[in-house]
């Protein structure tokens, strides 16, 4: 899957980021003009120098007086500042209104809960049987305004998907929100933008903006319960995962595994990464992660169990079926 462009705050791939891009252009223009004027005045002053015995020096005692030309220049300068600041205020106001308009009629609501160091994602609907819980990935249909409710379970985190929108903090005990109107199909990278502990750097999420039809297909796939194991090896893995340490923290829909502490694993193998963007999803990395998560992402909250090789093979075989 190709990542459409690198992670950039100048992408403008959603209404929010393109609004901010326009605002950035306005700020840039106004500030550049003012900056050039200030530097120009300074250069002229340096070039002209002080007239010896000039009229308006402090030494002459007439420094508080001014010439008509100087007066005009000062009034013009003040007017220019006033116009510039007003332009910035108006531009900011309309950017804010345009961004807020997305929240008026969201076509999709989801809840993102930040944990040390992964993202818990829930698609909320009125029909509980249609709810989806996944982790470290967000799928959004293009052109549909989405309302994202943000919460944190331990410390302050910040959700930042540079191509789509600005940062928004997630604060324990509070509910914040973010609105998104994605406009371009693609895969974007989001990350935590508030230092949240030892593995802050390994706390990324994939944002997939796709067509409405693809999104519906993804939703339908996510709503399915987990595939049942078919081979004896997968069955052994299923038994380990659902009865031992794994299920104390992880949930797999359709099985007895119902922990809520760690990421939902129902469709684990369909994700692009392991450990919130730490490793690409493949068999080798899966072995490494399950065998010793503390060597892959030291300090994360998944313990190294010290699995027997037979159990490790079985668990990996089972987890790979969770498409």
């Amino acid at each position: 899957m190709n990542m459409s462009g690198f992670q950039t705050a100048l992408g403008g791939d959603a209404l929010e980021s393109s609004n901010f891009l326009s605002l950035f252009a306005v700020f840039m223009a106004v500030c550049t003009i003012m900056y050039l004027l200030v530097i120009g005045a300074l250069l002229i002053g340096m070039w002209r120098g002080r007239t010896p015995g000039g009229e308006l020096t402090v030494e002459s005692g007439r420094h508080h007086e001014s010439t008509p030309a100087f007066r005009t220049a000062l009034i013009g300068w003040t007017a220019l500042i006033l116009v510039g600041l007003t332009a910035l205020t108006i531009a900011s106001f309309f950017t804010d209104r345009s961004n807020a308009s997305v929240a008026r009629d969201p076509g999709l609501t989801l809840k993102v809960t930040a944990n040390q160091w992964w993202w818990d994602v829930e698609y909320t609907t009125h029909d509980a049987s249609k709810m989806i819980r996944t982790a470290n990935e967000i799928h959004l249909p293009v052109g549909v305004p989405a309302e994202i409710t943000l919460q944190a379970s331990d410390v302050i985190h910040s959700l930042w998907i540079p191509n789509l929108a600005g940062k928004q903090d997630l604060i324990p005990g509070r509910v914040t929100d973010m609105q998104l109107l994605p406009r371009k199909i693609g895969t974007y990278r989001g990350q935590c933008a508030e230092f949240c502990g030892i593995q802050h750097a390994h706390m990324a999420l994939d944002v997939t903006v796709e067509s409405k039809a693809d999104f519906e297909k993804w939703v339908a796939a996510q709503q399915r319960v987990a595939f049942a194991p078919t081979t004896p090896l997968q069955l052994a893995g299923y038994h380990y995962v659902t009865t031992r340490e794994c299920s104390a923290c992880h949930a797999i829909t359709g099985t007895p595994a119902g922990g809520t502490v760690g990421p939902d694993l129902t469709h684990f193998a369909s994700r692009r990464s392991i450990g919130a963007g730490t490793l690409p999803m493949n068999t080798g990395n899966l072995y490494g992660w399950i065998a010793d998560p503390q060597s892959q992402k030291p300090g994360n909250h998944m313990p190294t169990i010290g699995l027997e090789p037979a159990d490790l093979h079985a668990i990996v075989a089972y987890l790979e079926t969770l498409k």
Partner: protein
Amino acid sequence: MSSLYRNSFAAIALLALICGCDRDKQEPRGNPLGETIPIAASPDTIFPGGKTPPSLDPRAAAYEQNAYAIAQGQQLFTWMNCAGCHSHGGGGMGPALMDGKWRYGGRIDQIAASIANGRPNGMPSWRGKLTNQQIWQLAAYVRTLSGQVRKDAVGARGDTMSNSPPQTETVRKPVTQADSAQ
């Protein structure tokens, strides 16, 4: 400042730094890997014939005096819903953990054994659900609830409502003998 004076000052500062770090030492993988629980630890604290209880497991100090282990235990206490029965130490369906009374022993090895083995009338066995290291960490946190752990290792703050003073200010008292509990 003479070089001898300066060197010894640096040595003392380095020593203080090394010793001071122990409290916050993080051992995320368990040391040695494949930690074990003294599941056969006797829950008794008095023995016939005036015999003294066996000496404390040397691993106890590594968990009990380590801020990281206690903090991990605190998180596990919430995650594994210990509060569902024990409340946040005050007890409910399960016995209180913040008093000085222990049915199955209040030493860290005895608490670890209780968590690993489970106990009659409702306490489930956590062996195979938590790693042994996590059970030690949980036991270390349970010890802090009754104020038995060094003040400089416990967390000053909890995330839950509490009617007791912060653990850093809890008065340290010796543990009551198990059999005087009920």
